[in-house]
């Protein structure tokens, strides 16, 4: 394989890897925010 191919694969690995990690964190944050809202509503209705 040519040296340029290794260079391109390495850069793709770095930026795809980091992008996937950020996307996973963003997804987790979205789900948690929804869960917090739901739990807050449940607690409020129980208090009422």
């Amino acid at each position: 394989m040519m040296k340029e191919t290794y260079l391109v694969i390495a850069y793709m690995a770095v930026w795809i890897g980091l992008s996937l990690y950020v996307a996973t964190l963003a997804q987790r944050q979205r789900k948690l925010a929804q869960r917090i809202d739901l739990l807050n509503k449940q607690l409020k209705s129980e208090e009422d």
Partner: protein
Amino acid sequence: MSTLNRTTLFPALAALLIPAAIGMVFFYAPLERTMGSVQKIFYFHLPLAFSAFLSFTVACIAGIMYLRKRQRIWDARLAASIEIGVVFTTLVLITGSLWGKPIWNTYWTWDPRLTTSLILWFIFASCLILRSAIDEEGKRATFSAVMAIIGFIDVPIVFLSARLWRSIHPTVIRTDSIGLESSMIVTLLVSMTAMLIFWVGLYKFRVALHLQEAKVNDLQTDGIR
């Protein structure tokens, strides 16, 4: 500075600097005489390694602070830095292997620098597994704090391994000089700054996420009561 500005400052800076750094790597930095274009992996391999070391240093400090103060924020900082450190070390190992294949004619060799880096990855990856295996918050934080402090011992060993033992891994930053020409140093500095700013943004985001997870656990516990 408003909350919105504080949360978007680092991602915005990273979004500007990362394309600039990639552009400089491909269009400004000169080709290295013996290794050719594959040497350009170096401009992100080194910043990734530096950021991984920073992660484990922060993890060690957060671990010490947690054991002293027993505050949730230090556990959040500990968890965030361990996770980011493992991600960055994984990318260091991948980019290093891809650089090694055309230069050393192998993806992997049991060189001191490579072996100690792999050990570092195993230590902190097992720390993540340990964290996911313990449900009790206090116990989980204490165990991972102790493991992060002990695991940090490997960071200076990785850094010094290529200097202390016979190694085929190049040593760019030496005590007397930096073995690069000026345009390579400028490109490296831009890449390093971009990666560090990205790291800060990622770290703040991960700490906030951990605190949010803890809040959900609290709300669920309140709901059970």
